[in-house]
């Protein structure tokens, strides 16, 4: 079996894997990073979103081998020294989560948006989140959280 080496949340990790192993399975099952979730099998729901080289990627449709040498950030790696990242804090402040299942993907997708557009309009946030499904919040408070989080990130 081939091995893959990548940086996950700042730490170098190496694993021997079956060639068909998906990035999400490597994270969840081999590295025990269960904050990344799987909500569908058609790349639609976005619960599995992680950052690869700072860009949001659906880890359910990325082969782990394709992440060779990449810098991967999961929800576990977003806060520093126990302090919430501004986007995480904004989701809490604006009640942008309920059951929490879509939340890691939403937050990481939002971080990517904020890095490209520091002052996204409501319409821009809604369009950007097209690839992240939430059944609990009706998106109302997620949109508010993403706008506030982007601003807090320095937008």
């Amino acid at each position, binding site marked *: 079996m081939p091995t893959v080496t990548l940086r996950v949340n700042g730490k170098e990790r190496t694993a021997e894997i079956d060639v*068909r192993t998906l990035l999400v399975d490597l994270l969840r099952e081999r590295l025990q990073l269960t904050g990344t979730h799987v909500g569908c099998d*058609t790349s639609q729901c976005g619960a599995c979103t992680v950052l690869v080289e700072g860009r949001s990627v659906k880890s359910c449709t990325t082969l782990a081998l394709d992440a060779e040498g990449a810098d991967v950030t*999961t929800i576990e790696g977003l806060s520093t020294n126990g302090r919430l990242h501004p986007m995480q804090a904004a989701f809490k402040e604006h009640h942008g989560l309920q*059951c*929490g299942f879509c939340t*890691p993907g939403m*937050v990481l997708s939002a971080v990517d948006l904020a890095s490209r557009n520091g002052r996204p309009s409501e319409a821009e946030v809604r369009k950007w989140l097209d690839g992240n499904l939430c*059944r609990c919040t009706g*998106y109302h408070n997620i949109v508010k959280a993403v706008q506030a989080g982007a601003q807090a990130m320095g937008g």
Partner: protein
Amino acid sequence: MSDTGIGAAVRRKEDARFLTGTGRYTDDITRPDQLHAHFVRSPLARAVIRKIDTGAADKAPGVVAVLTGKELADDKVGGLPCGWLIHSKDGSPMKEPPHPPLAVTEVRYVGDAVAVVVAESRQQAKDAAQLVAVDYEELAAMASMEAALAEGAPQVHAEAPGNICFDWEIGDEAATKAAFEKAAHVAKLDLVNQRLIPNAIEPRAAIAEYDRASDTTTVWTTSQNPHVARLLMAAFVMGLPEHKLRVIAPDVGGGFGSKIFLYAEEVVVTWAARRLARPVKWTAERSESFQTDAHGRDHITHAELALDEDGKFLGLRVDTKANLGAYLSTFGSSIPTYLYATLLAGCYTTPAIYANVKAVFTHTTPVDAVRGAGRPEAAFLLERLVDVAAREMGIDRVEIRRKNFITNFPYQTPVALEYDAGDYVAALDKALDLADWKGFEARRAEAKKRGRLRGIGLSTFVEACGIAPSAVAGALGARAGLFESGQIRVHPTGSVTVYTGSHSHGQGHETTFAQLVSEFLGVDIDQVDVVHGDTEQVAFGMGTYGSRSAAVGGSALYMAMQKVIEKGTKIAAHLMEASPADVEFDKGTFRVKGTDKTKAFAEVSLAAYVPHDYPADLEPGLDETAFYDPKNFTFPAGAHVVEVEVDPETGVVELVSVACADDVGTVINPMIVDGQMHGGLAHGIGQALLEHARYDDSGQLLTGSYMSYSMPRASDLPSFKLGHSITACTHNPLGVKGVGEVGSIGVPPAVINAVVDALADLGVKHVDMPATPERVWRHIQQAQA
């Protein structure tokens, strides 16, 4: 109001773990030496199973066992039970055909499980499942109610002639007939309330583990009500003593009704873990969720409203056919009956109502509760019919509602319920104001200049939550109690652990219930933890469904806290050398009335556990439990106003504005309550404009993934305008009513009333849900033809 008590928008305690990836959902759990299960499912809607050949799968790498319904029967594992017995109008009990967890002789819907492969890895189990050869003899499927009810249609179950599970009625048929005979006008409507797929974003999952030393089985599962799952699985399916089965529902990623029920997979995984003496885990793939999570709604209805010449409602007659799918799901029979037709009075004084509901078996996924469960079907029917009547009689849509509102409470409806409180006029006025109803015609004219058809729609509705009391529900056929348990364990230093039988899968109980402790015991919410979802830690519970947690679970906690205060008062009185009658408790302090002699709550709790100076006749400890059985349902109500613009060239409906004024009773945490409203509204708008579970004639699910089933996305929705118009529930100690389903009940008719309003000048009278561009475009073309 304290900073953290009732009425405070406290930020949620549970968010820290959800935001940092440290939540613990069922699929996050790994047990030592665990095996993985993959189900072999029928690709056909109806077929006889001639033979199942497991030979090749048995020999596949990593496979530990391939099990079928035969082994399940050999081990005396029974079928899945139904929790509510309905009687037909002729007095006969509903038909209850067996529901085997693994089909043995015949499959009845696409996705019906026939075997399970258990292997060392998930991928090995999945690979080997492809090798299980099932020899099916395909038969013609009854994939719709029309097909199942056709003359001479083959039977889905031998036990149910005509494919009728029950033929049920409610109300006074003769009085309703008399009302129609004296009517000045009769409005009629045929409508479909389409089938929905619940789609919690966390797929269902279960892990079971058998411990030989204690002869105990533990099941982690995605359940809204772990005690109910335990009761059904232990007592009715597997014949295990309840104390030998522990069910844990850890963090659960949304329910929306779909995780109330006991499913085949939970039973099979539990049985397999015991049989193989190793932990067995199963997590649904989304395609399995589409096929096997119980679906919702699916009614075909003809309804008629009789009115006098002034537009007063005289009578309502409803004939509904409700699709139950292939088998009776856990509460499938109660949804189109006691949770539907009992709501047909709505907010109105209609004196005579009669409804007949025929429940039909078809070769489709079983149907049960989805957010709202019966009440959206009632509200949609009634609010559409009222609009039709208003248009036909030339009466203003707002005025016809005002004219018929119930204004005196308590109010006994002709369909069994007694509403305790409400103010429908106030909610309506507030919603109209929020929506700027008066300014609408100017906006319509402006849109017309742009070539857009603008419409505004309204719904005024009431729903019923916290279904109760147990004795009444039992008399109507419920096979379970409808109470809730709550335990308040005060620790020696005054911190508190709350144990509740309610279950949170997004609703924020860890915060809301901590706020109740802060309010009534004066304990800092950081000193309060809430435990739920574990049958070993929580005495008993009925779980969370039907917007019942605050009204029933919260009330149980209130009662337990009263016991804590009562006992604490005796301890404090002893410590202060006073009579208990002279001691009062407020904001965490016991005080001898009219004096400055006080004892803090933590001093009293410490005395309870270090009882050196202590009342002689009092037990030590401060740990109280209450079981609360409500006296009645609660009746949340509201008014929703929706504004849309239709593009006549494409049929696309743009949602311009959604304004709501809701009466959900006392609001404990306004931030959480608004969040529940938003989610319910999105679900209801999804039904009105996007979602539709469809089968072809052979019973294949055409909408089996997110590529073909249209879930509401952020870009489909506007921000919502919310207002509250509160009256307190009169019969529970908190005055709360419930909020989880209000949006999904109230908003669908408001959306469709707005779409019809936009198209009314073209002559369109009704549009069924979902109002997709294609459907709306066809209405426009037909109207112009």
